């Protein structure tokens, strides 16, 4: 669905990403993981043209993503960021339907789609007319997800979608999200720094460090066949609870 060929991105004179060559296959869930500053969010932004590469080509569905094509790509890709990125002046419903209304879609179809998405994400119907400030963190994240799914996109990008949630809500939402991903069979690219979360979702994991790919493969590959000592260290740094006997 997405391909990157020799892509490089420079920020303030320092290379932030690449050169990277990567395929993100359709219908699969790929998780980008790595320590902060490794370039995983930058990579996600490149996919929908929020940033442009200095070198190389990013392509979506076979066509390069350029400033001219970026808008049509964005209409086919849903994007969810930490805490939802919701517009505080709009109700949950208005946030979800903003783009559809702008495109002049049929009102009834919009209303039906919102009901469908609320059911899918288990969002309470009475919350639809509240503003983001009146919703809980988990609810905001569900609204963010509904907004990303509104136009029934081919792909879904999520940038640390669960980072700001407390552990119980997070665990619930992880389970629901995985169900949704499996039910929808969309191309999913998810960014996280949590290995547990990565392995929970991923068909494929891509581990990044300093803007380059250190290893890509199944979660099992990272555990059992680390490409270099950094992978081992990264995997071991994720510790479970230490319970005294």
């Amino acid at each position, binding site marked *: 669905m997405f391909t990157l060929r020799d892509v490089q991105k420079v920020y303030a004179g320092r290379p932030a990403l690449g050169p990277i060559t990567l395929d993100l296959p359709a219908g699969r869930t790929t998780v980008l993981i790595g320590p902060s500053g490794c370039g995983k969010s930058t990579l996600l932004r490149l996919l929908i043209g929020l940033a442009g590469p200095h070198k190389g080509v990013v392509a979506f569905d076979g066509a390069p993503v350029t400033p001219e094509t970026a808008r049509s790509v*964005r209409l086919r890709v849903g994007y969810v960021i930490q805490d939802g990125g919701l517009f505080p002046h709009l109700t949950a419903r208005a946030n979800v339907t903003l783009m559809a209304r702008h495109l002049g879609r049929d009102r009834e179809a919009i209303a039906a789609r919102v009901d469908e998405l609320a059911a899918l994400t288990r969002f309470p119907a009475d919350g639809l007319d509240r503003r983001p400030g009146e919703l809980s963190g988990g609810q905001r994240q569900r609204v963010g997800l509904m907004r990303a799914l509104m136009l029934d996109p081919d792909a879904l990008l999520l940038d640390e979608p669960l980072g700001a949630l407390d552990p119980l809500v997070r665990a619930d939402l992880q389970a629901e999200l995985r169900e949704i991903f499996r039910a929808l069979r969309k191309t999913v690219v998810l960014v996280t720094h949590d290995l547990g979360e990565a392995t929970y979702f991923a068909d494929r994991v891509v581990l990044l460090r300093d803007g380059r790919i250190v290893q890509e493969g199944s979660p099992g590959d990272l555990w059992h066949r680390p490409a270099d000592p950094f992978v081992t260290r990264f995997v071991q740094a994720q510790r479970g609870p230490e319970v005294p006997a």
Partner: protein
Amino acid sequence: MRRPRVFPSTRLLLILALATAPGCSRTEKPVVIGAKKFTESVILAEMGVALARDAGAEARRDDLGGTPALWLALTQGDIDAYPEYTGTITRQILKADPPDLAAALAEKGVRLGRPMGFRNNYALGMRKDVAAELGITKTSDLRDHPDLRCGFIHEFLDRPDGWPGVRARYNLPQTNVQGMNHTLAYRGVVEKALDVTEVYTTDGEIAQYDLLVLPDDLHFFPSYEAVWLYRADLGARHPEVVDRLRRLEGKITEPEMQRMNAAVQGEKRDEAQVAVEFLRSKLGVDAVGSAEGTLAGRVLATTGEHLLLVVPSLLAAIAIAVPLGIVAARRPTLGRFVLGAVGLLQTIPSLALLLFMIPVMMWLIGRGTGAPPAVAALTLYSLLPIVRNTHAGLTGVPRSLRESAEALGLPPLAILRRVELPLAAPTILAGVRTAAVINVGTATLGGFIGAGGYGRPILRGIDKFDVPLMLEGAIPAALLAVAIEALFGLIERAVSRRG
């Protein structure tokens, strides 16, 4: 003649804003008699208004400040006639002393009436007791007292036939010279805060305060005989009005003028009434002056005039400033320039901006006095808070929200309309609120150029030292500012609730 290009939409907006200003839609132009900002001029102008009405014409008075503004208004056709003094015509208006004054004025499309009878010469005045103590009896005696404190009106300080000329002729050494309002200078002399001020020989205060008028022993001051100046086309449009105005020629003596001035200054009587009474007793004209009406009626009228300055200028300012603020937020380099430019506008003294707008509006829409220049100046004055807050509101929208809107696929204009402007709305509204309150206060200066509003009673009140009259403008102005604050408070709450 080629005109420099003006940003077309700006010009259009100004014209739109001004189309709602009073006076533009009237078809039959009334006769307008100009007055300077001092009592005698107002009384004479009121006589002119009453005489014009007696001739069957619609007429009103316009208070336009100083000589340059009146001359400009007369030559441009904003006013039809005003009382002037011969000395002022030669020294300040023509800056020449032609053998045939009437012919020189006729070249400029202005006619000169014959003298009304009295002279209102400049002279220097002092308290009698202070002068006696120092042994001063005539103007040249001032030479021996360099420490005397002098207070003159600004116009006298600048005029060649004023302080600069008299100082040169008499070789006067005084350096403690302040510019101030004529009435305040009189108070200053009376209360011994000042020693010398300029007086007009028909001033009612001379008798009222028993002041000494220093004889002009070196014959510096020219003769200031009161005359009508009127437009040549007034004779064609309203010959009977010109006839009536000229019936005043040779009819007013110096003591009569002094008495009328004292009646207004000292007894706080209404100028129009004093004028009408004189016309009745002296000319047998049963004339009607400007209707004074009840206090409530007057306040209602000035409030209406004031709102006609404030509302159009505020709307025009919003229409110009919000787009400017958007441009400033989008293009940081251009933005610094825009913010700097509107900031610079704010540093121009409001009165100077107002006067500057007279020729500008004359050129733009052909009306140089009254509401249009005041509305234009107020518009420029209201830009800064709105531009600044629009800029601040838009740049304050978190990057993540902007990006979130971009990621949805919204085009830039839709992002602006659906996300950024609504988020910036409370800040923009706060800017509009500030502009509105400043605007209400600044609009009182419109009184200087005949724009009406609360400034009219305030300025006349200052001139007559009539505190109730000042308050008649000042209190409603303060109340209007408070009301506007409250109104915007409600709007802001409604906006933040609705979103």
